[in-house]
């Protein structure tokens, strides 16, 4: 009986498509606006030439004075925190006295090397306190990771070689105090740029 009643009241063809389409339009427009605002450092290769930008790097916290004792490493995060939270935590607890990615980018700009984009990346990958990458117009990747100590930075070279050396055999490493520069995507055509990046990083002093 119940079944028969239902059959009678059913329209022959029910479609929710128009409602769904209107919703999709709203979502698309909102998403497009949000993406436009959020992705200011990644330019469309078709509409804009590459430009130098450090906009995507988080603003580092105020540094303590040079004569202050080094801050204690933050308490370890639980394993189940989100990637976003982990990145925020790393950005807010960068070690003092380390050469920073921002300094490298500024120095490269001064030497005429176009950095198309920068981004904070996960430091935990190399057991670093903080990491950021800069990508040049030629596609050279300069990753700068900051550690608690010079020894930790040096140890990270071996660690990175051990774990990533097989798929990425052609990287170059430069340590400078507590920081490690990894240059990737090396090839003949960018050799001189890579040399400049390495030398520039090596000449930087910690802030």
């Amino acid at each position: 009986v119940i079944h028969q009643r239902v059959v009678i009241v059913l329209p022959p063809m029910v479609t929710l498509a128009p409602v769904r389409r209107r919703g999709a339009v709203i979502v698309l427009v909102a998403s497009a606006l949000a993406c436009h605002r959020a992705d200011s450092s990644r330019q469309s290769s078709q509409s804009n030439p590459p430009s130098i930008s450090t906009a995507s790097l988080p603003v580092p916290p105020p540094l303590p004075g040079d004569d202050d004792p080094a801050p204690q490493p933050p308490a370890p995060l639980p394993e189940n925190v989100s990637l976003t939270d982990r990145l925020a935590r790393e950005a807010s607890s960068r070690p003092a006295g380390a050469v920073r990615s921002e300094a490298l980018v500024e120095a490269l700009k001064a030497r005429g090397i176009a950095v198309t984009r920068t981004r904070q990346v996960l430091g935990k990958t190399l057991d670093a306190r903080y990491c950021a990458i800069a990508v040049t117009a030629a596609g050279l990747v300069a990753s700068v990771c900051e550690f608690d100590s010079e020894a930790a930075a040096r140890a990270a070279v071996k660690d990175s070689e051990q774990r990533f050396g097989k798929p990425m055999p052609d990287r170059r490493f430069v340590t400078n105090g507590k920081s490690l520069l990894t240059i990737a995507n090396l090839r003949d055509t960018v050799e001189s740029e890579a040399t400049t990046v390495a030398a520039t990083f090596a000449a930087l002093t910690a802030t």
Partner: protein
Amino acid sequence: MQSMKRVCSMMTLVVAATTSSVVWASSHREAPFITKNPKVDSTDFYMFRSYEPGRDGFVTIIANYLPLQDAYGGPNYFPLDPEAVYDIHLDNNGDAKEDLTFRFQFRNDLARLAVPAGAQMTPVPLHNIGMVSAGNLGALNIRESYTVRVGRGDLKDDRPLLAGFQFWENVSNARTGDRRFAKPSDNVGTKTFGPAPGYDNYAKAHIYDVRIPRCNTNGRLFVGQRREGFAVNLGTIFDLVNAPAGVVAGGVDRASRNLVPSTIADKNITSLALELPISCIKGRSDVIAGWTTAKVKQLRVIGPDPSYEHPTFEAGALTQISRLSMPLVNEVVIGLPDKDAFSAAEPRNDAQFARYVTNPSLPELLEILFGGAGVAAPNLFPRADLVAAFLTGVTGVNANGSTAEMQRLNVALPVTPKGQQNSLGAAQCFVFGVPTPTNPGCDLAGFPNGRRPGDDVVDIELRVAMGFLLSRDLAPSGQLPFTDASLNEDAQFDNAFPYLTTPVPGAQ
């Protein structure tokens, strides 16, 4: 700490860190709503020129449904939904609308087997009560069967359109003329079907030569349970990519792409397999595009007095809730807010999802996780390379003039026999995006020119997503050998229709 370190060393397994709420298998439980409807959940779609010797004039199409079947899942096992329709659509003129649709509809009959218990015959609770073979079905309590109809023309909203008249004709058994086909029972175990090759022989008896209306050459048909053929390193991924230390990075060779067994290798799926003569399905172009969908009725009423035949009452228009063509698209490309919408969409309307391809999130997440080691996402937006791979086909290979998410197969390209197939598909045919058929290892018969069972689509798509088809200035990590360390290759499959292998038995 240590486990997180291992996480970060897993260069290639990272994808799942972004998708921890879904099963990252080609299309298993990939969208929120489909998880409530496993019987109509499409899992993989294959389309390739048949490489069984002597069959290169045919295209094999396989649509897998009902994911993650544990072989021991009795007593009901895994029948398909008799209230649903399962479609395989083919577009042979490049307008992103189906020109041919093969529609499968199932019926599950209960034999009502009973045994004497005291003074009465009591129905048994079991799937079968004795051995079963192709010639002896007497002990089988549930008997599945199905019909296949072929429709021609635009199927929009499942109604004939004035502009594209569509109608249905039955596919029939070429030997008997029957229009209803038996679906083999799932592989209950070796006591039911006998030791190997007991089930294999039983299942093969359900491969039919079929007459397809308006075709001069017969095709072949099989529907039944198969062993899951898709390989992916899944379990560790969802444990925060907590992989063993030995499973570290870099698919530089076959061995390093084959470090861990597929997590789902002990599962079964249900295959809807067709082998169709090329002459029957090809249009003016050599490129055929295909996809599968499943539709259910819009209304389901759960009544107070269900029976085996009518557990629910279902009515209303057939409505698509599952869709699949290119692997992994709805898993790692489409964003969570739009996954259900994608499942319900038709290729002709795919412009609404374009941003997920032109501005994908996966490479950005790879960069964030492994940037410290020097991994960087491509620096190109919109990602024209991904548009070609997923939405248009590759010019000169399998582009067909449309922009829609479909699997495209150029049937004019030669077949690669088993044993000579490259598990990286056609990827080796491109050097920084430039088609280079003379490149060593080039295998144009493979994904993304259609998809064969042995194409390791996880590795291929990881590499393509990271910019394999782009120059090194645009894709700094585009030439890195990304892998999930779980290999798919042709040796894992049969050399004959339906290619996917005998399902895992419920008991040995």
